[in-house]
């Protein structure tokens, strides 16, 4: 049993590690300059070959090299966006669960509003008005994806704050801030790790969808999403422009989800019992 869950995490983590290495050393991994164009007729839209692993696009650029650089975008958007939503989700969820009362009321209404609104439309709108670039994409994805985390942290805080060790800390006169961060938060982190790992994958999906619609990373900077956009017009002929970037997104998100699920099984004792 134990081996099986470790396998998931190891499998997912090794793929992500590989991706991270590719992202960091992109200039060395790429076989060609991702921006270098070759507009001569036989250089454009070449099928995959040994020279161009994933073929070339309509401007004669090497798709493999573009995807290598795209790894940077996807991973950094994933991590930074989730970091932002973690900060917001944990602080609001913690406040809400610890203090209760009207604080809880206000924050929970806010969460419900976030839940009800079709987030993707909100993101599209804000990005358009702020101007599409990678920094805005990270910030906006982070600002719109904290609601689930917030609920999770709140629920943990609600049960933990009634526990004896919190009472004893309070009786000893430990200030609220210290109780929240030192006593409760570490105990509430297990489900947060799981949820955060899963949402890295989610953020990467949103980024690629935005770039695909032309609202994310702007051309000529390569990202998996905008390679797909470029391939859309040649879909009946240049299948490699559509297949490979999508597969890259799929594998990356799948790896994050595998790590998340693996973590869930390791960290959640209830689930471990029921699986046995």
């Amino acid at each position, binding site marked *: 049993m134990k081996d099986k869950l470790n396998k998931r995490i190891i499998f997912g983590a090794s793929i992500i590690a590989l991706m991270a290495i590719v992202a960091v050393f992109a200039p060395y991994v790429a076989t060609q300059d991702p921006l270098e164009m070759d507009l001569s007729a036989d250089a454009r839209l070449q099928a995959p070959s040994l020279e161009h692993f994933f073929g070339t696009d309509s401007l004669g650029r090497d798709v493999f090299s573009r995807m290598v650089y795209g790894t940077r975008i996807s991973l950094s958007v994933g991590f930074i966006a989730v970091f932002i939503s973690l900060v917001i989700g944990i602080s609001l969820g913690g406040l809400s669960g610890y203090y209760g009362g009207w604080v809880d009321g206000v924050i929970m*209404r806010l969460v419900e509003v976030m839940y009800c*609104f079709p*987030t*993707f*439309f909100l993101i599209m709108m804000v990005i358009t008005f702020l101007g599409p670039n990678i920094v805005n994409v990270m910030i906006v994805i982070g600002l719109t994806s904290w609601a689930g985390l917030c609920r999770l942290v709140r629920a943990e805080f609600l049960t933990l704050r009634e526990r004896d060790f919190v009472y004893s800390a309070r009786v000893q006169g430990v200030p609220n801030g210290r109780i929240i961060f030192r006593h409760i938060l570490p105990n509430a982190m297990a489900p947060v790790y799981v949820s955060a790992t899963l949402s890295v994958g989610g953020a990467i999906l949103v980024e690629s969808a935005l770039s695909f619609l032309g609202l994310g990373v702007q051309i000529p900077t390569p990202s998996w999403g905008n390679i797909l956009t470029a391939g859309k017009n040649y879909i*009946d002929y240049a299948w490699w422009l559509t297949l490979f970037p*999508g597969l890259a997104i*799929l594998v990356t998100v799948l790896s994050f989800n*595998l790590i998340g699920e693996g973590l869930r099984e390791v960290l959640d004792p209830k689930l471990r019992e029921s699986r046995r």
Partner: protein
Amino acid sequence: MFVVMHLAPGDPASIRYGLNPDVSESARAHFSKMYDLDKPVLIQYLLWMKRFVSLDFGKSLIDDRPVIARILARLPATLLLQVCSLLVIFCLSIPIGIISALKRNSLFDRVMTILVFIGYATPTFWLALLLILLFGFKLEWFPISGMSPWYTAYLDSFARCKDLLWHLVLPVAATAFGGLAALSRYTRSSMIEVLGENYVLTARAKGLSERRVVMVHVLRNALLPIITILGLTLPALISGSFIFETIFAWPGMGRLGYEAIMGYDYPTVMGVGVMATILTLLGIFLSDVMYAVVDPRIRFGKRQ
């Protein structure tokens, strides 16, 4: 829930109005004046709220038609697509979940678990592209875009329906896919949980047929969490409509919203936003009603 219903249109609205100056800067001065864009943001917001009460979203900045008319013209196409997708999700995922739960660790269950995992991770717009590539171009089974092309005007109503269904296949497949993975997963885990309850044991001990135990005793109790998830998939479906309607050139509200955003057509963006929120709230309201239908405890709970 009702508090939210009043809160929701106001709050996202103010977020967007905060960004408004960008728009008026780019617009010519008299143009701004015509649409009250020269007034302070707060005044604009109040004016908008005043008109919103009577469902008047103003006129489109592009073609000067009332926003509400533009939206209503596009709404049926979106609703058609969403309702069909929901039906597909329902009809496929619940049986899949039930069978997986009843035959845990069987070949079917394992294959489905892997498929669901992949389903979660698939960028659905990419799936849409693959569908177009495979069924549209390679096999040429289904049309790849649009809803009712020009020639449908010359067909009788039966042929027109058939053509419409034909055009629906790919968009519905793409739209339903994400929800399918999620819902079948939740059905499975919810069923497994209920299968372990004592009353299921009692029902079996009474000698009821396995079919009756599963369909009446287990499924009914397992449906509650499933309905919650269904309510939550609605915002996702509507979010998805912005992408899929653009890819498949489906003449619905999502594409209208996308075009409006791209053209900085401010009143239309607002209108679509509000309409999408209303649809979502409607969905959540319906799932609340379904709760009461499925679970008598909720129906009677309030009276005691």
